């Protein structure tokens, strides 16, 4: 199972993750990106998740395999 995660120390609130993949990320009250729930990436949304990772100007978004 793939999961996404936003590193809150690096996130500066560009919003590129929740623009690229609104199913996986949402903005908090300050505009910072947060993964929704525990960040699971449902089948069919892998490409969006990759785009969120690739488009973060701060390199704050990661995707990893979890058991």
């Amino acid at each position, binding site marked *: 199972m793939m999961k996404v995660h936003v590193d809150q120390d690096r996130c*500066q*609130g*560009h*919003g*590129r993750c*929740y*623009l690229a993949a609104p199913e996986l990320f949402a*903005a*908090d*009250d*300050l*505009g910072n990106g947060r993964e929704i729930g525990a960040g699971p990436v449902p089948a069919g949304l892998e490409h969006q998740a990759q*785009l969120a990772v*690739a*488009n*973060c*100007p*701060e390199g704050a978004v990661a995707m990893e395999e979890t058991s």
Partner: protein
Amino acid sequence: MGLHDRVADWAKDFDHTDEVWAADPYAIWDELRSTCPVAHSERYGGVWLPTRHEDVVAIAYDTERFSSRSVVVSKFRAPIELAPVGTAPPISSDPPFHKQARKVLLPVFSPRAIAALEPSTRAYCEELVEQLRGRDVVDAAADYAQHIPVRVIANMLGLPESDADMFRRFVHHVLEGVSLPIEERVAGMVPLFDYLQGHITAHADAPQNDLISLLLDSEVDGRKLDVFEVARTIALLLIAGIDTTWSAIGASIWHLARTPADRDRLVAEPELMPKAIEELLRAYAPVTMARLVKEDMDWNGCPMKADDWVLLPFPSANRDPAAFADADDVVLDREVNRHLAFGVGIHRCVGSHLARMELTVALQTWLAAYPDFELADADAVRWSEGQVRGPRALPLRIRA
């Protein structure tokens, strides 16, 4: 503006307010990137110009060695005693003060707060395009783009829209009057601060549901902001919120006017808009920021001196072939686009969500009303000078 000597050597004596730069800075940056990636000039008391993506990012992240206390290059530098607050917090602030000053503004400019402003922005854009109906040639910069951000920010702040001309004059003075003598530079800022003081006092007496009242009610460092601090933050929002977005809207329309294939594609495939917006922001990023070197140092072989300026040309970083495939091509459906139009690091543009919304609505409304348009006179297009770049005259022939 004729206030400086013309530039002959861009690597050793550049001037970012030169008319050659204003007309086409990309050729200058491309050349420097491959021959002298960090240019230097003795003008303005010493300025460095990194042109590569990698170097711009490294300096933007390095708040230890580079201060933000002044971010517009001129002959005047805010004294070191003004750090970490700077002249117009939070854009001029350094850590640790910066974070608290920024936190006051972030909720007001969050995506949720900005989404609430979209309907009124759209209605205003529609009103503007309707006013142009029946005309053959219009100026998309002066008749359309310039009005949108000034109206939105005035409404957010709680200032009368009818004062828009004064706001634009002030912003023009701050951003493009950088070669003026210091006395004129300061004198040009006085009328706006006098004006703001009146409005701030009125808001203090009778709070409103707007940004001025919110600022008056905000605490930074455990105390309320005083009138002058509120005024400086309002001035910042005017400077940062008007010319920048005006420039992005104008440059995007300019691109579509001279690239009919992109224009037609965006009309035919409106779902492409989010990616196209990011690509237009990458290719025509309006804003170049600046930093001040804190102490003498060797930076990657560059002998930087305390109080040297460093320009951060985000639009040059965005055209670096080491960071972007086909960097000089506008690819409307570019999928991977880690552009720096809104900067990078702790000073990410606070208004980026607002700017993106305004740019999207402005383009959608324009294309819906005028899907067929072209440059009426390419030679009549005029660009702003200095650190915010966008068309200030953009005559278009429109066919409804």
